[in-house]
């Protein structure tokens, strides 16, 4: 072997080695979350309130419920807005408003979520003098809007132009072509985008810390603080109690199962779709 071949071999080994290192954290995180987490999981964990410090048992049922409420509220705000912006971006792209909106949406998605939390704190928590589920949902929806707008834009751009032209040629007004043909025809891929956005915000903690805050009670109304799985994990993780640490791992396992489950679901769905499209 001459020196060029040696160099070549060394390089290939180094690339494969480094690429493998990239995956180590994934395996380690999954291993520890499952290893520590499954011990915390039982029926009570999903259905009970936290037990007082030092007492065994209890669960994070309130946080699971809280997360669901927050996600549903945030979705209700951000799905119509995101879809509307996405439609404008894709169907009116020659308009100046759309170009400006494109830049705005990208800027919005580049803002750190903790800053969005701070903004929500300033416009909701401060004037209404208190942490609330409303505030948490608004913060989450601001994180979610640009995600949905961008995936909507991309999905709608995949619809061939001939389809739109065919609709127009039949004498349909443009808005009907957009809603009944373009959007309705891409409904399943739009849904994929929405589910991906939900999977992303399900784990968001930073925007909730001082908007939804935390709670150790069941849901008490939308204008009261509300618990959520990620904030609960954070609170438990930084606490000094072993029992709470175990609960944090349990919460992490629930969160991971949710997030990875949604991701896998989408992947299989897309794979199935591609196969059907090919045949």
């Amino acid at each position, binding site marked *: 072997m001459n020196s060029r071949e040696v160099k070549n071999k060394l390089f290939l080994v180094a690339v494969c080695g480094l690429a493998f290192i990239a995956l180590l954290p994934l395996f380690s995180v999954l291993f520890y979350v499952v290893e520590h987490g499954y011990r915390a999981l039982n029926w009570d964990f999903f259905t009970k309130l936290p037990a007082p410090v030092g007492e065994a048992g209890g669960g994070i049922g309130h946080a699971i419920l809280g997360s669901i409420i927050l996600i549903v509220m945030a979705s209700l705000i951000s799905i119509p807005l995101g879809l509307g912006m996405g439609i404008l971006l894709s169907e009116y792209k020659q308009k100046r408003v759309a170009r400006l909106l494109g830049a705005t949406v990208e800027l919005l998605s580049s803002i750190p979520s903790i*800053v969005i939390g*701070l*903004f929500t704190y300033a416009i909701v928590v401060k004037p209404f003098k208190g942490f609330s589920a409303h505030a948490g949902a608004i913060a989450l929806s601001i994180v979610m809007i640009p995600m949905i707008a961008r995936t909507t834009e991309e999905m709608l751009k995949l619809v061939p132009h001939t389809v739109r032209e065919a609709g127009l040629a039949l004498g349909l007004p443009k808005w009907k072509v957009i809603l009944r043909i373009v959007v309705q025809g891409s409904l399943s891929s739009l849904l994929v985008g929405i589910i991906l956005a939900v999977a992303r915000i399900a784990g968001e903690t930073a925007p909730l810390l001082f908007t939804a805050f935390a709670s150790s009670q069941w849901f008490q109304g939308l204008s009261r603080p509300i618990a959520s799985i*990620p904030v609960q994990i954070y609170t438990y993780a*930084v606490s000094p109690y072993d029992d709470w640490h175990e609960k944090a791992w349990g919460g992490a396992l629930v969160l991971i199962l949710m*997030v990875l489950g949604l991701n896998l679901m989408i992947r299989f769905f897309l794979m199935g779709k591609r196969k059907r499209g090919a045949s």
Partner: protein
Amino acid sequence: MSFDVEKNRGDVIFRRTLYVFAGIAFLLILGIFFFLFDLSLPAIKEVGLSSMLGREWNPPLKIFGILPFIYGTCASSILALTLATPISIAAALFLTELAHKKIGALFGFLVEMLAAIPSVVYGLWGLFVVIPWLRESVQPWLRNHFGFLPFFSGPIYGVSLMAAGLILAIMIVPTITAISKEVFYSVPTSLKEGVLALGSTRFEMIWIAVISSSRSGILGAMVLGLARALGETMAVAMVIGNAPEISLSLFSPEQTMASAIASEVAEASGVHLSALGVVGLMLLLISGFVFFMLRLILTSRGGRAH
């Protein structure tokens, strides 16, 4: 393409409705800048800009210097970028040039899953897995062998700039890998084949054809990774030790802008809250600046920010 006909009132109403949605997005951006500025105004007035740029942050004494946070954010992000870039480029090369198609697909999927894990779970894992490992093996070893460098000296706590940089690196690997992958895919096959036909080895081909024609793309990927690292909050807040100090040592606990906001806002009021508003505004401006750099790099490549 003339898909720009408006036949009836419905079209006008529909378009105007969409404009209202766009208006909401514009208002949101303006509102974020305005309200953060509004939030930070009392602190700027009361403490003054010059002392806000000081080195000490001590809320009980009403001393609000935000320099430690800026240092913490920059140091942890740069550390993360240094660790993540070679790994991500290797991962992207593995995906595009080396791996068998099926293995590549599986590998790409696993890297994407790395991005799907929530920040708070990384924080939890960092706190109970990475930090003990750093405290008991990595950091003592580094201090014994490289203790003469200022980066590897000082007391070892576990929670540290190093822990934050490491976790951040893991979190930005998927971002840099994804962009680099696209960049490498866009290198024309004819170019690669041409280099190989001249008798080069695989390494020389990758070096000559792939890497050198992807420089600006890799830079774009790094800037996008940097943007993610700057704003990352929870994982950092859990492992960095929350100590507003400026120290060259990677072993020392620090605080970033994002983690300072996360750990202090809920209990803050008055000037303290407003000073945290200044930190938020600063973070917003820095991430906005990085965003425009990214646009600049990507438009000069003829691509689009992603």
